[in-house]
């Protein structure tokens, strides 16, 4: 196919790291909110969902990048969805093989990874234009950013809502769990609090960058 020459990104540390902070899918791009709010009621669920999504991101990204020159744009969405659905099915079986309890806890949200907009967004915006290795590294970065964000929500919700972390009791018998935190509204509260923190840090960083010259960059 005759394609316009595209900007090919060189592999660098930023290819990976920007998924963690600058392009964090949850805290910056606000993508993938459905699993973020639904399965972040405990730390283990959050990490499992993050890892499952990372696997699908990396696997589908790699295959799409590898096949990018053979996929006509008229059939690209159909092609991407079939590829993504393939990796979701694999991860679905893998989780059942690892733990049925975990599979029951994650429920329908494993299958819903197919329509997670982080993955289709990455396929369209990155994997379909970049070489295999940068795509793989970028996907792993975005996946790690998603996993960290889910863990940030999941750990806070589990500690406040159940008084545990990874199932281990943190407080004495006198602790009264803040049950609303493990219910859907708790997901919104904790996400809102994290977004507030992230934006505050970002704005503080921007104000420092704009500070007049002559003032040391690390001055408080």
């Amino acid at each position, binding site marked *: 196919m005759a394609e316009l020459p595209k900007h090919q990104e060189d592999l660098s540390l930023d290819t990976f790291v920007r998924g963690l902070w600058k392009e964090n899918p949850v805290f910056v791009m606000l993508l993938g909110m459905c699993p973020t709010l639904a399965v972040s009621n405990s730390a283990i669920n959050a990490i499992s969902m993050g890892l499952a999504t990372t696997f699908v991101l990396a696997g589908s990204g790699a295959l799409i990048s590898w096949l990018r020159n053979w996929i006509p744009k008229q059939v690209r969405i159909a*092609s991407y969805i079939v590829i993504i659905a393939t990796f979701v099915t694999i991860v679905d079986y893998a989780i059942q093989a690892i733990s049925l309890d975990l599979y029951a806890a994650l429920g329908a949200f494993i299958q819903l990874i197919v329509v997670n907009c982080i993955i289709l967004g990455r396929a369209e915006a990155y994997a379909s234009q970049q070489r295999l290795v940068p795509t793989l590294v970028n996907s792993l970065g975005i996946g790690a950013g998603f996993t960290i964000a889910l863990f940030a929500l999941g750990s806070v919700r589990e500690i406040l809502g159940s008084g545990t972390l990874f199932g281990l009791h943190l407080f004495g018998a006198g602790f009264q769990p803040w049950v609303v935190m493990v219910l859907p509204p708790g997901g919104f509260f904790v996400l809102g609090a994290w977004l507030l923190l992230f934006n505050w840090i970002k704005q503080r960083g921007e104000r420092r960058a704009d500070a007049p010259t002559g003032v040391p960059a690390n001055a408080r």
Partner: protein
Amino acid sequence: MTNDVQVEAPQAPPDATPTFAMLRTLGGISLISGLLVVLAYQFTLPIIAENQRVRTEQAVFRVVPGAVTKRDFVLTDAGLAPAGEGVQGELIYAAYDAADQLKGVAITGVGNGYAGPVTVLFNYDPACQCIVGSKILQMTETPGFGDKMETDPAFLENLKALDAKLNADGTALINPIVTVKNGSKTHPWQIDAISGATLSSNAMGKAANTAAQRAAPAIQRDLAKLTAANHTGQD
């Protein structure tokens, strides 16, 4: 309408993508997808089957204390049939102690709770014709309210000697198991609801009733098959 006001330079029509290229791509991707999915399925199938077996066994041994072996039976119209011979139907699990004595029969029931179905495994004791234990297999009840069914000692007391006696014909329970308002239990076939979690408690009552109504008549009729199972069954 005419196009005489058009000021933009006419654009060259885009290159037509050959039909073959589109078919080739979608066909090829579907082939790769099929291979990967079948490979993953075949590889994980025995592991998942083993996980399910272990999970069921653990649940049965937990609900029937003292049990060390179990035999699976299927509820059919003709009575109980040993599982695994192509018979379709609901499974019940006869559990035996180390001396091959029948300790109890684990039966499954489902009731609709506040947030969805509640699936419960009950320990049915054929000798006393009653339910003597329970374990919730799956539920989505509200944490802090509905999930008290698993932890509330007063509620669990209901399920330690829940009457499930059959009528004279042996076809149904004399008194259906029901959940009653908190604090108003007067008969051994009633379950005292948890205050604040009435709908979840009702689900437990419905689950116990459906499980016992379906399984108890067959168990009592074919009790000989269950007690003889370990001596004649496959090992």
